[in-house]
C-alpha cells in the first residue's frame, strides 16, 4: 500500500486514504499471471508449484469481482486436478519402467515385437507415479494461473484495451461471445417447437431438423446487427498511404513471429539463450510499432480507457519478479527446481525462487480495491431457462 501511494503520481491514487477503488487494467493482471505461469513452467518442484497455486488463489480471493466470469479460477483448478489424474493414469498404464520401488504389479499385456518400447501394464513404481504427479502438477499450475487472470480481468475490458488495429478482431470476439448463449436458447426454442409439432427432438433426425432454423435465425440476427453497427458509424476510416500499410503489415508479421520464438525460447530450457528474452523483446517492439502504424487508419476514440498507472506497473512487476526468481535460480545452478524422484527425496526450497513467487502475492494488497458497485454490476442471472418461446 505504501509503495502504491508513494509511487502514484496522478490524483486518483493519492489522498491519505490510499488507492481509490477502481478496475485495474486487465493487461496488468495478465502480465502478472503470465509471470507466475512462466515460473511454473520452469520447475517441477511440487512445493514451488503449490506455492504458486496458493499465491494465485489468495490474490483472486482478494480482488475478484462478483461476476459470472470471475468464477473461472475454481473451474481451472478442477481442470488442473483432472490433468494430474489423467497424467498418472497414463503413466501407470503405458509409462516406461522407472526406479525400483514397486508398489503394485499389474499384469503386463504382451505386445507384438513391432511395438517394442511400448509397454502395457506391468510393475508400477513409486518413482514413476511421483514423476507423473509432478509433471501433471506443473501443467495444472499453469492452468491455475490462466484461471486466475480470467477471474481477475474482465474479458470484455481486456478486449476493449486491444490496440486500435486489432479493434475489428475484438468486435468479432465480443459479437461471438454474445451470439453463443443466444444460439443455445435458439436451439432450445426450436427443439421445443419440434416437440409441439410431434417431431422427434432427439437423435440424428432431431438434430438435423433443428439445425436449419437455428442457423437461419443466427444469420438473420447477424444481418440486423450489421445494419445497426453500420448506422452507428462502425467502419469510418481515415485514408492511409499504401507504403504505410505495407510497412505496418511487415512489422506486425515479423513482430508476431519474434514473440512466438521468444516465448518458445523462454519456456524451453534447452533452447539457446539468444532465442529467449532478447527475441521476445525485439519481437514485441516490432509488433507494437506495426500496430501503432496500422492503428492510424482507424479514427476511433476510446471511452474511459483503463489507465496504466503505478498499480499496474507494480502488479505486472510482481509477475515479472516471480518469473525472474525462478530464472535466476536456474541461472545460478541452485538445486531444487527439478524434484528428485530417483530416489524420492523431500524437495528443497531454493531461496530466490521462493522469494520471487512470494512477491507475486503483493497484488492482493497493492492493486486498487474493486469498485463497490461491482457487486451490483452484473447481478446473478436468474437461474431460469428462457420461458417457452419468450
Amino acid at each position: 500500500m505504501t509503495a502504491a501511494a508513494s509511487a502514484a503520481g496522478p490524483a486518483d491514487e493519492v489522498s491519505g486514504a490510499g488507492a481509490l477503488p477502481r478496475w485495474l487494467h486487465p493487461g496488468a493482471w495478465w502480465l502478472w499471471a503470465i509471470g507466475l505461469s512462466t515460473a511454473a513452467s520452469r520447475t517441477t518442484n511440487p512445493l514451488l508449484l503449490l506455492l504458486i497455486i496458493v499465491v494465485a488463489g489468495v490474490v483472486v480471493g482478494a480482488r475478484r469481482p462478483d461476476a459470472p466470469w470471475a468464477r473461472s479460477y475454481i473451474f481451472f483448478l478442477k481442470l488442473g486436478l483432472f490433468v494430474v489424474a489423467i497424467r498418472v493414469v497414463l503413466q501407470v498404464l503405458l509409462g516406461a519402467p522407472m526406479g525400483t520401488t514397486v508398489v503394485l504389479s499389474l499384469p503386463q499385456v504382451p505386445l507384438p515385437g513391432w511395438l517394442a518400447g511400448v509397454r502395457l501394464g506391468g510393475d508400477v513404481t513409486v518413482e514413476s507415479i511421483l514423476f507423473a504427479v509432478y509433471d501433471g502438477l506443473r501443467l495444472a499450475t499453469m492452468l491455475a494461473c490462466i484461471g486466475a487472470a480470467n477471474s481477475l480481468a474482465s474479458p470484455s475490458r481486456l478486449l476493449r484495451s486491444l490496440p486500435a488495429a486489432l479493434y475489428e478482431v475484438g468486435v468479432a470476439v465480443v459479437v461471438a461471445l454474445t451470439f453463443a448463449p443466444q444460439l443455445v436458447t435458439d436451439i432450445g426454442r426450436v427443439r421445443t417447437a419440434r416437440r409441439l409439432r410431434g417431431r422427434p427432438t432427439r437423435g440424428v433426425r432431431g438434430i438435423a431438423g433443428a439445425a436449419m432454423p437455428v442457423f437461419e435465425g443466427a444469420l438473420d440476427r447477424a444481418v440486423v446487427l450489421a445494419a445497426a453497427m453500420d448506422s452507428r458509424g462502425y467502419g469510418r476510416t481515415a485514408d492511409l498511404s499504401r507504403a504505410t500499410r505495407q510497412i505496418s503489415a511487415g512489422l506486425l508479421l515479423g513482430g508476431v513471429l519474434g514473440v512466438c520464438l521468444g516465448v518458445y525460447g523462454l519456456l524451453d530450457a534447452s533452447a539457446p539463450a539468444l532465442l529467449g528474452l532478447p527475441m521476445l523483446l525485439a519481437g514485441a517492439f516490432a509488433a507494437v510499432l506495426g500496430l501503432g502504424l496500422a492503428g492510424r487508419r482507424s479514427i476511433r476514440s476510446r471511452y474511459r480507457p483503463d489507465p496504466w498507472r503505478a498499480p499496474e506497473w507494480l502488479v505486472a512487476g510482481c509477475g515479472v519478479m516471480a518469473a525472474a526468481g525462478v530464472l535466476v535460480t536456474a541461472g545460478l545452478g541452485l538445486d531444487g527446481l527439478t524434484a528428485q524422484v530417483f530416489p524420492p527425496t523431500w524437495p528443497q526450497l531454493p531461496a530466490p525462487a521462493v522469494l520471487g513467487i512470494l512477491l507475486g502475492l503483493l497484488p492482493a494488497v497493492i492493486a486498487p480495491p474493486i469498485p463497490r458497485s461491482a457487486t451490483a454490476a452484473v447481478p446473478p442471472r436468474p437461474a431460469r431457462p428462457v420461458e417457452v418461446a419468450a
Partner: protein
Amino acid sequence: MIRFDGVSVTYDGCVEPVLADVNLHVPEGELCLVVGRTGTGKSTLLRAVNGLVPHFSGGTLRGRVTVAGRDTAGHPPRDMADLVGVVPQDPRSGFVTDVVEDELAYAMESLGLPEPVMRRRVEETMDLLGLADLRERALSTLSGGQMQRVAIASVLTTHPRVLVLDEPTSALDPGAAEEVLAAVQRLVHDLGMTVLLAEHRLERVVQYADRMIVVPGHGQPLIVGSPAQVMAIAPVAPPVVQLGRAAGWEPLPLSVRDARRQAGELRRRLDGHRPPLRIVAPSAAAPVAEVCGLVVRYGSVVALRGVDVAVRAGEVTALMGRNGAGKSTLLAALVGLRRPDAGTVRLAPPTTAGDRPVGTTEEAVREARRRPFRSRRGSRVVATRSDDPAELRGTGLVRRVGLVPQDPADLLYADRVADECRHADADAGVPAGSTRALLALLAPDVEDGTHPRDLSEGQRLSLALAVVLAGEPPLLLLDEPTRGLDYTAKARLVTALRRLADAGHAVVLATHDVELVAEVATRVIVLAEGEVVADGPTADVVVSSPMFAPQVAKVLAPAAWLTVADVAAALQESVTTSLQAPGNEPAADPTRPSWWAAG
C-alpha cells in the same frame, strides 16, 4: 429536415417498386407517425432516411433523400450516424457491447469523439432517459422497456437531429410501452428532436403524433396529414377513433381523454342498453384441461405457486399480467413442455367430442411404458399417464393440445407453404390436404410456392395456426399472438378464434393486448408473481382495471362496454331494429373483412 424527392425503391429481383415516386417533407421538431400494413414499404421508408436502403439492403433507389441537406446517395449509413439515429425493431439484436454504459458510448467511439465529450454525453443521456441506475448492468439482464430505452439512448449520444424508431413498443407490455413513449415524448418536447416512428399499435401512439404518414403499398401515393385528418379517412383506426366514428363525433377523438370529454351524451344514449354477455355457462361445458395446485420453479425463482385453473370447451381465456408473471410457464405446463414441480396438469381423456374424432394415444402409452417413472427433481408424476401432457409425444400430443409460440416461425421448417402443409398433415395423421384447406380459410391470399419466411407476420401466424389446428386439438394455446400484427391481420385472428370457440375448442391466450382481450376473450385470468390474482368474466376483470381496460371501457365506464362493435350494435338497435345482427353473433365490426362470411 427530412426530404424525399421523387423517391422510388425497387429491390433486386422484384418487378414492382416498393415505394413509387414518394415526395415527402418532414419539418424539424415533429413527431411523425408512419402507419400501414405489413409489407407495404414502411420499413423501407424508414431505412431510406439514413441510407440503409439502398447502401445496405441492395436494390435501386431513384430520386433524392436528404436529411438536413445531406444526400444519402453520397453518404453511406456510417456517415449519417451523427445526423440520424436508427433504433431497430428488436433492440436486442442491435446491441454491440454487453454493458449499458459501453453501449451508450459505442457510436461516439466510432465517430472518434474526444473522451471528455463522450464522458459528458453519456452522463447527460443517462439522465435524460433515466438509465443512471442501470449504468453497469449487463444488457442481457434488462427488461424489454429498459432495453428499448438503452437502444434509444445509444443512438442519442451522437446528438442526431433525427430519430428513427421501427415499432418501438410492439413487443412491450403496456407499462413498458408507456415508459418508452414517455421518453420519446420528452425528446420531442424538450430537445426539439425530429422523430419518425412506425407503429402498428395506433391506440398507444396516435395521440402523441404531430403528423401521420400512411403507406398504402403497391406503389400508391402516401397519405400525409394531421392525425385527425388521416384518422377520418384511414381504413384502420384505434378503438377510440372507431367509437368516435360510430357516435358521429366531430372532431374525432384521438385519445381516451378527448373521447371521455365528449362521451356524456353517448353514455346517456346507451342508458337502458345492456352490453351483450359472452359467458359460457361453466357447468354446461366439460373441462378440457385441469390444473391443480401447479408449482413450477426455475432454480430459486418460483414461476408458478399453486395455480388452480380449469379450462372448458368453448371458452376463450386470456392470461394477462406483466412479463415474468408466469403466463408463458402456465402455457408450457399445459402443453407438457414443463413438468410440474408439484401439483398436476390433466387433459380431458380422449373422447369423441361431437363429431370430432380425437387422436389415439397409443404412441404416448408406449412411451409411458418405456419410461414409466420418469420424473424430475424427485417429484413423481401422479397424473394418469396418458392424460399428462408431459408424457405425450408425436401424434398423441398434436391431437390433444396445440401451442402457437410467440414467434410462429419457430413452428415452420419447410421451404414452401405447400410442403409445410403436407408435413403438418403427416404429423397429425389427418388426410392429405386438410391443413391446406384450413389455411385457405384463415388466410386465403397465401400462395403455395411462397417461402414461409417471406410471408407477412399475419400470414405466418395463420400458417402456424393452420399447422397446429390440423390435429384438431381440443385445447389451443397461443402465446402473444398479436405481436407485430397489423389491424387487418388482428381482425382476422379475432374472427378465427371466435369461430374456434364456437366449434367447441378451448382457447387460452397469453397476451398484453387489451384490445384483443376485449374483442375475443370470455374469461380473463390475471397472474402476478406466479399466483392467480383475478379470474372471471372479461367485463368483470378488465373494466375497472387501469392497466387492462380497453379504450372503449375507459371512455364509457362505469358501464361495462368492451368493444366498438357492441356499442355500435346497441346504437343501431336504438334507431331501428331492422339492421340488428343475426343470432347471438356480435354485430359486424366495421373493420372486419368480408371474406370471412363465406367461410
